[in-house]
C-alpha cells in the first residue's frame, strides 16, 4: 500500500466528508435553481444557436453544475475508495479508457431523442391541419358525362 494505516484512515474520512458536502451542495443547488428555495426564482435555460444549422446547443446551467459535481463524486469514489490511484497504469487504462465510448453514446442518443421529439411535434401539427375540400373528383369526373354513358 502507498501509505500506512493511520494516514489512509484519515484520508478515507476526508474523502467521505468531501463526498457528503458535494451531495448537500448538489441538492441545495438543484432546489435553488428550480425555484424551490426562493419563491418564483429559477435559473433559466437557453439555447446557443449554431451557424448554418437550425438547431443549437441547449445550455442548462443547473444540469451542467449537477453533471460536473456528479463526475467529481465519481472520480473520488473510483480513485480513492476503489484505490484506482494505486493500481498499475495498465490496469487503470484498460478499465477507464473504454468508458470514454460512453461520451459518444450520450451525445448520439440525446441528439436522436431530440429528433424523435421534433418528429412527434411535426406529426401532431400535421394531424391538426385542416384541408379545404377542393373537389378533385368533382373537377375531373363530371357527373353529367357519367350519367350520359350509363343511362
Amino acid at each position, binding site marked *: *500500500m502507498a501509505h500506512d*494505516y493511520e494516514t*489512509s*484512515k484519515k484520508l*478515507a*474520512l476526508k*474523502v*467521505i466528508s468531501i*463526498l*457528503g458536502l458535494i*451531495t*448537500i451542495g*448538489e*441538492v441545495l443547488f*438543484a*432546489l435553488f435553481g*428550480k425555484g*424551490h428555495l426562493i419563491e418564483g426564482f429559477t435559473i433559466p435555460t437557453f439555447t446557443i444557436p449554431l451557424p448554418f444549422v437550425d438547431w443549437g446547443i441547449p445550455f442548462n446551467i*443547473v*444540469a451542467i453544475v*449537477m*453533471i460536473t459535481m*456528479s463526475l467529481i*463524486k*465519481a472520480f473520488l*469514489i*473510483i480513485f480513492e*475508495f*476503489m484505490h484506482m490511484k494505486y*493500481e*498499475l497504469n*495498465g*490496469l487503470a487504462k*484498460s*478499465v477507464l479508457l*473504454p*468508458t470514454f465510448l*460512453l461520451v459518444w*453514446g*450520450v451525445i448520439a*442518443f*440525446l441528439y*436522436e*431523442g*431530440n*429528433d*424523435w*421529439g421534433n418528429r*412527434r*411535434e411535426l406529426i401532431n401539427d400535421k394531424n*391538426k391541419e385542416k384541408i379545404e375540400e377542393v373537389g378533385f373528383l368533382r373537377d375531373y369526373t363530371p357527373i353529367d358525362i357519367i350519367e350520359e354513358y350509363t343511362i
Partner: protein
Amino acid sequence: MATDTTIISDKERWDGGTRPMGASYGKLMMWYFLLSDAFTFSAFLIAYGALRVSNPAWPVPDFVFQSLPGEIHHKPLIFVTIMTFVLLFSSYTMVRAVQEGHRENKKGITLWMVLTIIGGLGFLGCQAWEWNTLIGKEHMTVLTNPFGSHIEHGVYLEGDGHDVTEGMTFIPGDPYLIHKHDGEYHQLKYKVTEGSEKGSIKQQDFGPRAFGALFFCITGFHGFHVLSGVVFLIIILINVISGNYVKRKNGYEMVEKIGLYWHFVDLVWVFVFLVFYLI
C-alpha cells in the same frame, strides 16, 4: 505486495510468472466485471435520457418524488438525499473494513462489515418504502403512468379533492397526477385557454408510459445489485469470522473484492440520483 514495488521490465512482466497488471486474477476480473456492468447501467440511463428529451409531457421529478414517511408531502429531493447518505455512509464503512483487512485485524473487519450490511439493508428499506408509495398510493405501475406534465395553457373545469380545485389555471410544464378512486383513474377535464385550440375542452392524458417502465427497471436493477451485494457481504462476513481468509495469507483480499463491488453500487447510485432526481 512486495513484488509490486520491485521494478521489472515490460518484457519480463508479460513473460509469465508475474502478475502483469499488478493485481490477482480475482481482483482483475472484478474490475472487468464492473466495467461491463457500467456499460449495462449506462445503456439504461442513456435510453432514459433519449426518451426524456423526446417527450414534452415527461413527468417532473420534483413533483413525482416529493413524499416523506409520515404523510409529509411537497418536499422534493429530501427522502432521496437521505437514501444517498445511507449508501455513502456504507461505502465509508466498507473502506474501513478493507483497511482493517490490510492489517489483518479480524475484529475491525467484522465490526465495519456489519455496519456496511446495516447500511445496505437501510438503503433497501428506503427503496421499498419509495416503491410502495409510488405503487400503492399513487398507483403508478410498469405500464400505467398517472404522472404527466401539461403542454398547453388551460384552466381546470373540476377539482380532484387533493391539490387541484375547480378554476385553477396551469401553464405548459406544470405537473399533475391522475388520482385513482374506487379502482378508476379520474382524468380531470380542462379548457384550453391559449393557442390554436383555444376554447376546446380536453381531459388529462396519462403520462409517457416509458417513465414507469424505466423507473422501476433502473432503480430495480440497482436495488437488485444492492441486494446481491448484501448477500455476498454476509457470506464473506461468515468466512471472515470463521477464519477462512487467515489461511489464505493474502491480506483478506476477498474483503477488498467485495469492497470494489460495493463502491461500484454507490458509484452507479451517484448517476441514478443525477438523472432521475436532480435534473
